[in-house]
């Protein structure tokens, strides 16, 4: 598996994400937001958490219009894999690679804690390492993680089995408790919780490891 992790000014989970990919066996290259191409042969692009461009205007809005994001969109259009975590999820909704938007948390507070996530579908190369209905513990750390989409979009996500994870106890007001969603071809995952922060015993939990291992399994044999 060859992975590229995008680094924006203000990204702060880029190295964590790179380590999680590496521990799953990936060969990882960091790419800068001003780069206009991805390295050759990249299977998956990681869009990390953080505060790209200081969250100016809207979270992810300026990052979504950066040179590298055009390449990420082209990569996705070719059937490439993309994982967006936290701010990365916000970037993917702003680019239009995933539907909906992330609003300010309903309680207005920045929330940093470990939450329970229910695995809603195992039918993706991100979630195939879990059992359907499994509850896993993954940290969240966000101020704008309140997932919003219009009723038609929510019905489509549900109908097409594209809701990857839901919160067992909704922390932020997200519609339908949504914590992570898949693209139509199931190769783009955006999620607010941080699997890369639960990928090493030193983190206090390793429930995120199965996501990276499943990806490595799918993308190494591909």
């Amino acid at each position, binding site marked *: 598996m060859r992975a590229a992790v995008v680094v924006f000014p203000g990204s702060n989970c880029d190295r964590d994400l790179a380590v999680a990919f590496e521990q799953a066996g990936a060969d990882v290259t960091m790419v800068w937001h001003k780069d206009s191409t991805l390295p050759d042969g990249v299977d998956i692009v990681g869009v990390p958490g953080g505060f790209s461009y200081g969250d100016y*205007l*809207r979270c992810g*809005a*300026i990052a979504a*219009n950066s040179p590298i994001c055009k390449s990420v969109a082209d990569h996705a259009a070719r059937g490439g894999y993309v994982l967006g975590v936290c701010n990365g999820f916000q970037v993917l*909704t*702003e680019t239009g690679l995933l*539907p*909906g*938007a992330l*609003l*300010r*948390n*309903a*309680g*207005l507070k920045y929330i940093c804690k470990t939450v329970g996530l229910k695995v809603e579908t195992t039918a993706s190369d991100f979630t195939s390492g879990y059992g359907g209905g499994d509850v896993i513990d993954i940290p969240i750390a966000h101020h704008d993680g*309140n997932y*919003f*989409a*219009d009723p038609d979009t929510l019905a489509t996500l549900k109908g097409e089995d594209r809701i990857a994870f839901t919160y067992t106890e909704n922390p932020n*007001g997200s519609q339908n408790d949504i914590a992570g969603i898949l693209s139509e071809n199931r190769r783009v995952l955006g999620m607010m919780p941080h699997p890369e922060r639960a990928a090493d015993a030193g983190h206090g939990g390793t429930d995120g490891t199965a996501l990276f291992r499943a990806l490595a399994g799918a993308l190494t044999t591909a």
Partner: protein
Amino acid sequence: MKARVHVMLKNGVLDPQGEAVRHALGAMGFDGVQGVRQGKVIELDLADGASEADVEQMCEKLLANTVIESYTVELV
């Protein structure tokens, strides 16, 4: 020419910040406020030749997220 762009959350999209402001106003004794919606104003200093249509494109592509926000453009 300047353009003033007003960006607001669409009706039906929860505005927790506006709600917090409404609560604060109520706590201060301003009882006459039934609702508060908070948005933003973006002023653009436009070069000669830039048109209102250009500003519309800027709104669609960057200044507003039309999934959750509406915008109006005012030339001043």
